[in-house]
């Protein structure tokens, strides 16, 4: 069968797709987008997480035919996706002035104090969460990283000041075997703190 859908903002067509193929297989093997990872292919590890019409899903559990006419964002499109979400400029990635130490001491704001202003994101090649993963040392073998990035980016989109418990809950479907998760927490805190820094810097 032929499947037509949007991937990272571009219309894509896959031909000769066998009915049993997953979205993950079509992305990796037919569209040349191997960023979504094939760690378990049974919906248990989260390494293949993509956004399907904005919702994070395990692409290994989505039949390719289900995405006909729909909109997919993968890790390859994460930077563009974050850039489009943010309007206006901002500081250069990795240079927002928040250190890991500061990020570790960072506390989620109380819910009633949350601002709904859009965060300013850097116009750089990486999204803030991608840069934060590098800066915090949250990448080791990196196989879980794409799925974690998509899930963490979606969390920060919903909640720009997540508590540790919020972060843990949002990422509980993503297994990592290398890091012990501590530096992944650091990375999400860092991305959140940098978002707040930028907001604060603009007098919000």
């Amino acid at each position: 069968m032929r499947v037509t859908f949007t991937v990272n903002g571009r219309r894509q067509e896959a031909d000769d797709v066998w009915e049993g193929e997953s979205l993950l297989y079509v992305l990796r093997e037919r569209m040349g987008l191997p960023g979504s990872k094939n760690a378990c292919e049974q919906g248990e590890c989260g390494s293949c997480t993509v956004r399907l019409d904005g919702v994070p899903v395990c692409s290994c559990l989505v039949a390719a035919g289900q995405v006909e006419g729909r909109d997919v964002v993968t890790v390859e499109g994460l930077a563009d996706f974050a850039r489009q979400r943010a309007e206006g400029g901002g500081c250069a990635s990795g240079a927002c002035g928040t250190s890991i130490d500061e990020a570790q001491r960072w506390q989620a704001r109380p819910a009633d104090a949350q601002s709904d202003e859009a965060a300013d994101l850097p116009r750089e090649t990486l999204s803030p969460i991608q840069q934060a993963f590098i800066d915090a040392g949250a990448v080791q073998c990196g196989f879980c990283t794409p799925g974690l990035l998509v899930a963490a980016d979606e969390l920060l989109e919903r909640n720009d000041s997540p508590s540790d418990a919020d972060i843990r809950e949002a990422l509980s479907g993503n297994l990592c075997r290398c890091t012990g998760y501590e530096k992944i927490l650091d990375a999400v805190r860092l991305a959140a703190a940098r978002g707040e820094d930028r907001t604060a810097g603009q007098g919000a």
Partner: protein
Amino acid sequence: MADKETRVATAPGRTPTNLTQGGRTKAGIGESTLRPDGTLKVTGEFAYSSDMWHEDMLWGFTLRSTVAHAEIRSIDTSEALATSGVYAVLTYDDLPTDVKNYGLEIQDTPVLAHGKVRHHGEPVALVAADHPETARRAAAKIKIDYAELPVVTDEASATAEGAPLIHENRDDHHVGHVPHPNIVHRQPIIRGNADEAAKKADVIVSGEYVFGMQDQAFLGPESGLAVPGEDGGVDLYVATQWLHSDLRQIAPVLGLPPEKVRMTLSGVGGAFGGREDLSMQIHACLLALRTGKPVKIVYNRFESFFGHVHRHPAKLWYEHGATKDGKLTHLKCRIVLDGGAYASASPAVVGNASSLAVGPYVVDDVDIEALALYSNNPPCGAMRGFGAVQACFAYEAQMDKVAKKLGMDPVAFRQLNAMEQGTLMPTGQPVDSPAPVAELLRRVKAMPLPPEQQWLAAGTGADVRALPGGLSNTTHGEDVVRGIGYAVGIKNVGFSEGFDDYSTARVRMEVVGGVPVATVHTAMAEVGQGGVTVHAQIARTELGVQQVTIQPADTRVGSAGSTSASRQTYVTGGAVKNTCEHVREQVLDIGRRKFGTYHPAWATAELLLEGGKVVTDGGEVLANLADVLEDEAVDLELEWRHRPTEPFDLHTGQGNGHVQYSFAAHRAVVEVDTGLGLVKVIELACAQDVGKALNPLSVVGQIQGGTTQGLGVAVMEEIIVDPKTAKVRNPSFTDYLIPTILDTPTIPVDVLELADEHAPYGLRGVGEAPTLSSTPAVLAAIRNATGLELNKTPVRPEHLTGT
């Protein structure tokens, strides 16, 4: 000699690339330099082995045994071969040479089963087809007639009279000294006189401990791409821990000279010991050579559980004695490791388990025995901690028991008996570098404790997410009790017992665009640990350059040895350092030749390369490196070795068997719901001596990761093998549980840096030690909370509720 540069196969669409770092990167050793592969990994562009892709490639699939022990009466592949889209079906009969087995030390593992299968999941046949599902469906049509045989699953069944022999005609070098042919290797360690010393003991404590079978559960599945070459050779792009060890095992089976099997390391999604043995390497090459087409094999998670060896499950019997003032008098212990159907790394695991069985304590009189069985259980081999993990679980439980019987504080008791620099190991080897065991315990105990009952912190009713059971919402904290436990461990660094544990590095220095740059080429497997980061740091430090390129690891450069045993920063880092030092000398010779007459310091001073310049040790600048080198390049490939070791005596276990030791201590804080039998680890603090932190960020990451794997085995991880059939019951991430971010607590780390004068920069291998002590620390904390004895990993709810 064959031209090493010849690449006669076409490269796949995606290939591992150079990693270049320069510009504003934090420079040398001791800095938390960021990974050079970080950007590729966060954008999805990093080429992992399962991402390899080639125009016109086929997919390989492995048919595996559905029974654990059986004679193969016949295999019928005709229907599979007739399937549309299938290009080849291979069995044992299709192997091209007389070399039909492989193995790390003992060549006892069949490439494809012949005559019989010895464990559930053993590879029996291979299929290549144009779609992975076609290959799977065709494989399902292969008919195999098995005549099942009785299974051997533990020591009693393996050594019973008339027990089936797993390998009938053993001719390996261990068979002469083992008490039974179903025992792979046995190592006693006798020092002093444990029976005599026991008479001095005021208390004697014994225990029996069971350590379950753990899986490495790396996330990147076994995978790779074999591309046939026009010269009859093959290019293999694969994830492994040691390219040259693979090559040594692959080439003879294919009947090819080693230079015709060209291996390139592709992105490795974690390893933890599970990629020391071959998995799909030979299979993909066989299919590629048979079909003349590139063949990709990617295991799914189910197959991955069968495709690699696991951590040895173990039974351990321990007896310690102590005087009433708290001094250990003696140790008697027996450690039985189950190696499964094939030897893999079992002999070396036995060496570690026995020589490290005492732990980091002073005990002069010991009677130790460790052995590994052959059985029909899944093969076991290398996993992070390698034999030391199982022993640490038992001796640390014993330390708590002895301390309790003496009425002493468990930490004070450990400190009283802690080894230090100069202590003799039970092998008679002196520990000749810092051994800060008591200090690590002091530090981990001194860390502030997390607040109690954090689920009440919000003040608005219980936050169930912070309770054992979490979001299951099964309790509001009524039956929750807290416990605290301590443990410490000792792990050897590097390969032991006389192994020639060398590494090779090629370093090139030249001027590109007016800027001096270094290129580092080794065969080191970057498995996520950050070797590529550290090598660039070393080159910057030694050569005074900013820009460093790390080339992909391949077999065009000499062996780097294995990325395991916490050895790679020591040994390949040492090789890079050593080669850089020789490159530096040649660069300085060029400088002396060109500029020596202009300044006397060229001849008389100690010269360094710093900031792109040649400087004296007094800081005077003599020349720019760009002016020294101009269009010359210095390019060297050198081997480097650490101090030699020697084998343990087969009867007494005496010998200077290890290169270096590393030490870590943990304090675990747990909350246990005694009603539900659920455990939540609240915090798992670690103190570790790393000698010198070459990259502090990576060091802490390694310690936290190792700690979490130890936590996993304490409370959830176990491959369950049916004792009647030897079949694996839980080969999936649905049933084999590894810690999620909700299961993993805060892991504060206190890094101590006491230099080992024998090691490059004083460093000490980091990766494994934290995996040892975190498991017994968690167990100790659960015992402290519940008062239960708990002598088995993992602790399950039924162990806590008595159901």
